[in-house]
């Protein structure tokens, strides 16, 4: 019911200004969001947020954007058109990362300081459940059918499997040290989990929750200790993964069939998270230490531009503007 109204609203805006698609980047140490215009590849807006913004995700219809304001202990709900904070959601303490359930209603939030995953109903703005997980929960994912949610815990070194029906854990699987990010791929048949200190990605078979492959990274002339996989995203059809490798300042291109690394692309310093443009022909990576975003041309696998943003850019999210 909401959609038509919104469409008209956006259409009205479009008629006044020709808007290009955008990448929204949270700046952890500036308490801002930098909005990058994908066409001009420039920061066109800087929006203030709560303290220490990290995770960022749009609602499925892009009518609102959710921001983890970690040090404000809140998930903020913002109108992306005006940049106005509409309200805060109860999020539990120190929300770092979250994932929006396919029902477009429930947010699964990692509370990093509390070893808890909080489930929030974004409509009633209430906490539906709090689930005890391992220490420093961070990576969050939800299966395409919405039945399974995943929390990874950085110090416990596990992926915790949550049954979204009962909001309880049904499995806990060990991964390598400091798991950071999780994604369901290939129609939810596989779960990928990156381990920052372990330097690996574990691939799980979702039906059995067993590990079916482990991906290693090896960059010439860079010590393995510095090769630390964090965020990753998949190209169209889940054929390839682009994996941020932290302080090695590289992004790896992994063949998702063979689990082999095909390429390493040099980007900014301490590359962290990323998102694609609309047709996934370009990838935007946040580089925490150098305070910029690298634009990668997906087809040629080359870094084509770097865009200065705020201090310690962390999350990235695509926003279509039509």
């Amino acid at each position: 019911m909401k959609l038509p109204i919104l469409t008209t609203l956006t259409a009205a805006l479009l008629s006044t200004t020709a808007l290009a698609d955008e990448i929204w980047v949270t700046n952890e140490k500036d308490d801002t969001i930098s909005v990058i215009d994908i066409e001009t590849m420039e920061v066109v807006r800087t929006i203030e947020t709560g303290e220490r913004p990290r995770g960022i995700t749009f609602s499925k219809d892009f009518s609102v954007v959710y921001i983890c304001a970690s040090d404000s202990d809140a998930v903020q709900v913002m109108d992306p058109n005006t940049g106005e904070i509409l309200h805060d959601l109860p999020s539990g303490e120190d929300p770092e990362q979250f994932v929006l359930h396919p029902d477009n209603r429930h947010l699964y939030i990692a509370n990093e300081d509390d070893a808890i995953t909080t489930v929030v109903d974004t409509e009633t703005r209430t906490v539906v459940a709090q689930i005890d997980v391992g220490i420093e929960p961070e990576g969050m994912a939800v299966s395409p059918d919405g039945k399974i949610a995943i929390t990874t815990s950085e110090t416990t070194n596990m992926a915790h499997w949550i049954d979204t029906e009962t909001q309880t854990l049904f499995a806990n699987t060990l991964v390598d040290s400091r798991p950071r990010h999780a994604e369901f791929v290939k129609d939810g048949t596989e779960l990928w989990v990156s381990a920052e200190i372990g330097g690996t990605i574990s691939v799980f078979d979702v039906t059995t929750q067993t590990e079916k492959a482990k991906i290693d990274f090896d960059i010439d002339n860079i010590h393995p200790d510095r090769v630390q996989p964090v965020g990753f995203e998949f190209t169209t059809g889940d054929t390839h993964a682009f994996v941020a490798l932290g302080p090695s300042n590289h992004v790896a291109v992994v063949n998702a069939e063979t689990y082999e690394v095909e390429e390493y692309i040099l980007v900014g310093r301490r590359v962290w998270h990323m998102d694609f443009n609309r047709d996934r022909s370009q990838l935007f990576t946040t580089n925490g230490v150098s305070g910029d975003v690298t634009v990668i041309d997906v087809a040629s696998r080359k870094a084509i531009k770097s865009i200065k943003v705020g201090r310690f850019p962390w999350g990235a999210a695509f926003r279509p503007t039509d």
Partner: protein
Amino acid sequence: MKTSRLACALASVLTVGIATSAMAEVAVNIHYLKQVLETPPTLSNLDPIPEDLGMVGAELGLQDNSTTGRFLGQTYALTVTEVYEGEDFAEAVRAALAETDLLVLDAGTDQILQAADLPEAAGALLFNSGSGDAALRGTGCRARLLHTLPSDAMRADALMQFFVTRRWDEIALIAGDRPDDQAWADTLEASARKFGLSFGARKTWVFDADMRRNASQEVPLFTQDLGDYDVLLVADAADDFARYISYNTWRPRPVAGSEGLRPVAWHRVVEQWGAAQLQSRFEKLAERPMLDRDYAAWAAMRAIGEAVTRTGAADAETLRSFMLSPDFELAGFKGAPLTFRSWNGQLRQPIPLVQERALVAQAPLEGFLHQRTELDTLGLDQPESGCTAFDN
């Protein structure tokens, strides 16, 4: 002597329904023993040494291990014993060994050696979280003794790498007259020479005046004849006089060592690499910032926890061989996996170089290379360690 037993509340209260297959119940008992020393009087009372130094680190390690353990059917218990001056440390260790073979020792070199040499310790696994003495990592090493506190040599090397990088080539030094001041000064001097720095004047601080009142008069005179130098090292193990040196030197030069720029195992200014989370967990528990020996005790507990998680075993022999194997790595919030040196049991770790309000740098610094890992540019490397107990 005071002994208290901590079973982690977290573990007993929470029940989690888990369908992880083939979980064996494993109970891990760890005993932390601290030698409580009377500290010498210092000129300033601004920074008293916390009475629970080290202990809270072990406690936090217990909590971290227990949270992980509850998903795997593994439980952890920690017993804490404080041994006061005049009491028999070895006796306390013997009593502890009757209960468990996993010990964390926050004590001096002599006490640690006594403990390691007890016949009862033959099959045990001991962690040194209290002594930075090179002897314990060199010819005095013991096969069953691992070290989570960085050696003083590692910390000295970290500082010298920074001087080399900044081209502060000329070094002068002031040391207190207590044996541990002189030992720290010797370590700094040896490290400076190892890195090819020019080591100039070295003076011993013997004044007994109250420097809070006349530091500005005394220190310029005392430092006037040091000649020219780029940086002044101060070796003051008890934190007695070092704080009065900065800004009072005859020449306007930076101060490092026990004051100014300090090489540490841990400090509240370490925030990168997820460290902010460890800091806030610790501060919630201790109501004070985490210090070196807290970190070392935490790291010992976590090393045990990590080895138990990965092996499913709780016996000292299995845990020791896993920790010394290439499969072991500990996420220690310092930006690199922490591993044990297989030739002397020292936990490899980056060394933060800090001033009171910020992290200045973290060693190993860029450009200091090593064929194995850059972390081995800090402290005793295999060829020079002289430790033979690990050849097995």
